[in-house]
């Protein structure tokens, strides 16, 4: 993003400071530990937030993207890491059950591609602007989303 400084290896304090400055109330800081920052964000600005984290804070790698089914709503959890001082950011994004859509971060991190495909097929969360949102792990004739809590395994019955 133009006009912003480039931070090669921001510390935890810098990360909280910068994100707070830029996004204000849209992003809340849930807490922080040594080398760990926990954020939660609204799903409208998640793409912008991720782009800012990638371009300005220089978090080059999306470690993990995972979906969580809280039964009342779904959640996406992003774990982002950098290659310099081991700081990781965790972002939680809530998604309402009646509109399972969120912006894809694959244009930012190519490594997020398969994580998003996996989340799509296992939870049914649809990622906008994803280049190839298809089934990855399960056979293509599966109609259900196995990781949702509404799908029970034999042992749980």
């Amino acid at each position, binding site marked *: 993003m133009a006009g912003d400084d480039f931070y090669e290896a921001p510390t935890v304090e810098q990360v909280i400071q910068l994100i707070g400055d830029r996004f204000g109330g849209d992003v809340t800081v849930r807490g922080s530990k040594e080398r760990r920052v926990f954020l939660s964000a609204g799903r409208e600005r998640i793409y912008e937030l991720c782009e800012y984290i990638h371009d300005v804070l220089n978090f080059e790698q999306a470690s993990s993207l995972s979906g969580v089914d809280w039964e009342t709503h779904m959640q996406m959890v992003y774990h982002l890491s950098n*290659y*310099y001082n*081991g700081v990781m950011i965790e972002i939680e994004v809530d998604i309402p059950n009646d509109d399972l859509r969120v912006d894809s971060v694959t244009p930012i991190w*190519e490594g997020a591609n398969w994580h998003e495909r996996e989340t799509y097929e296992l939870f049914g969360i649809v990622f906008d602007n994803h280049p190839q949102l298809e089934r*990855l792990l*399960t056979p293509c004739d599966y109609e259900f989303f196995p990781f949702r809590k509404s799908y029970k395994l034999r042992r749980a019955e």
Partner: protein
Amino acid sequence: MMTSKMWVTMGPQHPFSHGLWTLKVKIDGEVITDAIPIIGYLHRGWEKECENRTYPQIIPMADRLCYSASMTWSHVYVMAVEEALGIEVPERAQYLRVVADEICRIQSHLMWLAAMGTDLGNLTVFLWSLREREMFLDLFVKLCGQRLTTNYPRIGGVRNDMPYLFERDCMRVVDLFEKRLWDIIALMDDSAIFLSRMQGVGRISRKEAANMGLTGPGMRGCGVNFDVRRDDPYEVYDLLDFEVPVHKDGDAYARYAVRIEEMFQSCEIIRQAMAQMPDGPVRIKVPRNVPAGSHFARIEDPRGEALMHLISDGTDKPYRLKVRSPIFVNVSGAKRMVLGTRMADVPAIMGTIDMCLGETDR
């Protein structure tokens, strides 16, 4: 000249795929113009199954996540649970975990070296490195009672203390291994044929690697100087002195060299850990219910960065357990790595990724 291109499906039963996956390549003569990786042949819903098992029951399941690096996977699982419980593991247990981790890293790298040897057409490398691997598996048998699926770490420590004379065995194996590894190196590195197969093949730039999310030796072969053990230390790695090998080239040879050097460094870590190991308890009692919360732990797997994200809800079973597998991300870049190379290079490139499909498909 007009040539027609054809799709060749390599897999799922194919000698180049160590495990079960498919690489569909479009070849023009011998040159690859397009590629589609297909995975999921080993998908078993690991994360879903864990939601139906109690916390200790998941440890042996985590062993089967990646069968050639079982120790690190159960380690990262118990670390995530300990993070959620907020407990500190006894120091001796931490050292024991480090030792077991490094043994696991060496044997996993040796398995990779063996597979790499057969990929490049040499059975001698395969058998020699499996011979060295047997020594480390014997150590595992003595320590944990199984060759591959160790089931060694426990929530709050490790299963048992070192058996009698284990330290001596460990030192002997490490010394012998360091001597014998040079034989394999002489076979690989001093041979013009192997060098010509590996150098300049499957080149990845640093930027691409970062964007793809490449981790582990693949990433360090591209010139990224990062290692979770050193830069985000867990257990007692911050008390140990070791080097992180980094190579600038980013080709198959760079990844090979990084792994070989890592084996030497692991030997050194085992020596130091054995020397510094304090006396004391190795396992503490932990409550069976984990307080609600969302926690994650990451670790340096032999293949890259392993991360487990645990969401607990106060019961004795996890609410959600997400596994970030390094190979899952590395193999998604397979297309980018093989484009423009020849068909004969595919095993050489995919061999240096060190596939392990158990953790990829989960």
